[in-house]
């Protein structure tokens, strides 16, 4: 039988605010345990939460970026469960009235565009951190650090619109790109600032009703999300083919073993008993607030990609690569404004610049070769001051040297000779020294011209502009 997979993702993004969602403790990562806590996030009696307005603005940005409907009145709710890293015994989240609903975004897999629905985006607080298995923890105990407790999150819940691990990976990549463009989350999955759970079920192709789903957790990279979903689809098909039944359960992905194992079954499925949190008054978004957020929205990746194709005449592939991150797109634009040669500039950014960025593990905005330096270098090529290959040497030198590009070209002795007088002289000398080759050229062996160009280049110690040399040679040999 042919099966199709039905996949929905729940993505938690830690918001890049300075302070927590309901108190003024810092959200900075890596502090000593329990040093960023206060009566509110410790749940001491009588402490009351006060909402961080930036959290609302960040959630609105994501809502606008995914063309969601904004609930102008939204409300926080308590999600009740007991766990040692949740001191209140409930997580403040949103339930009936989330801030955003009914959004969507477009993904592209193998050149095919597909729209993925977003059910809802809501604001909530993170829980603390429990440590169990480290060597310094007593075997009968867990250690609890509440620094993360109250760090703001948005949860982005998709519709079950994805049909393959590829589509799920493309959607997650898109979400990560968006939160980074918006500057609301650093998108780092390894450190857990972006987390993804996947709901997976399968059904025979053509069947309308959904199969029993399982939930996959603990996938700390896009690659692992893809692997875990593929694994789970195959596992479910095997179970059904063997005449078995899928059990609704939560599975934990083990990246070391490349397998998923049961974390909890249906029998202890949670009953969260949500209800509106009486400690928090409704959040009412008015047009002024929304307009302020709208004015602060950057150009989004899809729009920017289309503009790069139109405005700079770049191939679709280049526009896609250059707009992958806001930083790359900004770098390219800063350079191209000065060079006016979009394709050549694109090639440099996608080639040398990205290679350097990978090698140094630095974002483009922090590279020693700034967009301005790159633009100077490209202009030098355009003006015939330097050859393409010599420019690569200058680019390498710019990693450590601070001199202006023009100065560096001279210091490295890489300035091309394009002065006609000097070039004519060299060409004449080469032709005079090789009468036999000139004769064979005139007898029709046109490819001898390569030999002449090479000789002139040698004579100039590589500084002659080969294009000009070729022109002069062709003219002189025709005389």
């Amino acid at each position: 039988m042919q099966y199709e997979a039905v996949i929905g993702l729940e993505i938690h993004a830690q918001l890049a605010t300075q302070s927590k969602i309901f108190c003024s403790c810092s959200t900075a990562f890596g502090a000593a345990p329990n040093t960023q806590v206060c009566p509110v996030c410790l749940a001491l009696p009588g402490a009351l939460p006060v909402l961080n307005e930036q959290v609302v603005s960040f959630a609105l940005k994501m809502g606008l970026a995914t063309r969601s409907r904004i609930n102008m009145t939204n409300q926080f709710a308590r999600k009740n469960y007991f766990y040692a890293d949740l001191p209140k015994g409930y997580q403040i989240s949103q339930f009936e009235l989330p801030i955003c609903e009914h959004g969507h975004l477009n993904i592209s897999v193998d050149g095919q565009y597909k729209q993925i629905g977003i059910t809802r985006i809501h604001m909530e607080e993170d829980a603390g951190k429990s440590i169990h298995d480290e060597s310094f923890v007593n075997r009968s105990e867990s250690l609890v650090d509440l620094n993360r407790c109250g760090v703001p999150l948005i949860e982005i819940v998709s519709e079950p619109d994805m049909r393959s691990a590829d589509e799920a990976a493309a959607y997650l990549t898109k979400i990560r790109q968006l939160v980074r463009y918006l500057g609301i989350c650093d998108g780092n999955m390894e450190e857990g600032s972006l987390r993804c759970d996947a709901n997976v079920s399968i059904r025979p192709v053509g069947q309308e009703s959904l199969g029993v789903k399982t939930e996959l957790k603990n996938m700390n990279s896009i690659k692992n999300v893809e692997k875990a979903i593929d694994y789970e689809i195959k596992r479910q098909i095997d179970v059904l083919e063997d005449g078995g039944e899928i059990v609704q359960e939560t599975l934990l992905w083990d990246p070391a073993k490349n397998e998923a194992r049961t974390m909890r079954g249906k029998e202890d499925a949670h009953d969260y008993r949500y209800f509106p949190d009486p400690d928090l008054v409704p959040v009412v978004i008015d047009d002024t607030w929304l307009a302020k957020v709208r004015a602060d929205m950057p150009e989004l990746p899809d729009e920017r990609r289309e503009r790069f194709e139109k405005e700079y005449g770049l191939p679709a592939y280049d526009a896609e690569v250059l707009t992958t991150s806001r930083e790359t797109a900004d770098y390219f634009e800063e350079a191209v404004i000065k060079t006016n040669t979009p394709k050549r500039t694109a090639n440099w950014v996608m080639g040398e610049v990205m290679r350097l960025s990978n090698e140094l593990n630095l974002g483009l905005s922090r590279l020693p070769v700034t967009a301005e330096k790159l633009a100077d270098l490209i202009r030098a090529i355009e003006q015939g001051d330097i050859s393409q290959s010599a420019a690569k040497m200058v680019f390498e030198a710019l990693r450590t040297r601070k001199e202006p590009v023009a100065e560096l070209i001279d210091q490295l002795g890489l300035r091309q000779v394009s002065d006609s007088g000097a070039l004519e002289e060299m060409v004449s000398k080469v032709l005079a020294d090789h009468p036999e080759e000139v004769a064979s050229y005139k007898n029709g062996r046109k490819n001898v011209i390569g030999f002449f160009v090479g000789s002139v280049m040698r004579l100039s110690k590589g500084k002659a502009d080969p294009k000009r040399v070729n022109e002069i040679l062709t003219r002189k040999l025709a005389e």
Partner: protein
Amino acid sequence: MSVNHDDIKKIASLARLEIPEDQYAHYAGQLNRILEYMEKLNEVNTDDVAPMYNSLERTNVTRPDQVRPSLPQNEALKNAPLKGDGFFRVPKVVKK
């Protein structure tokens, strides 16, 4: 709607309350009296009344995104029955 034996068992377990089985009837009686009162409220026609999420009239009580000092670590841990190395120590919790 009324509360039965199984409901009491479930509610107690969700609230982590230990209730001896011979007292289930006692609590069921109490909870059912509360539900009966709620039934009385249900008799009021609320078709044109918007749901009330909070008894306060105010909305948008917010603060700017500014960090202020937290408690010192020893203060934060002061009430904990067990602590060590800056952590709260709790009986081992197996992941949910």
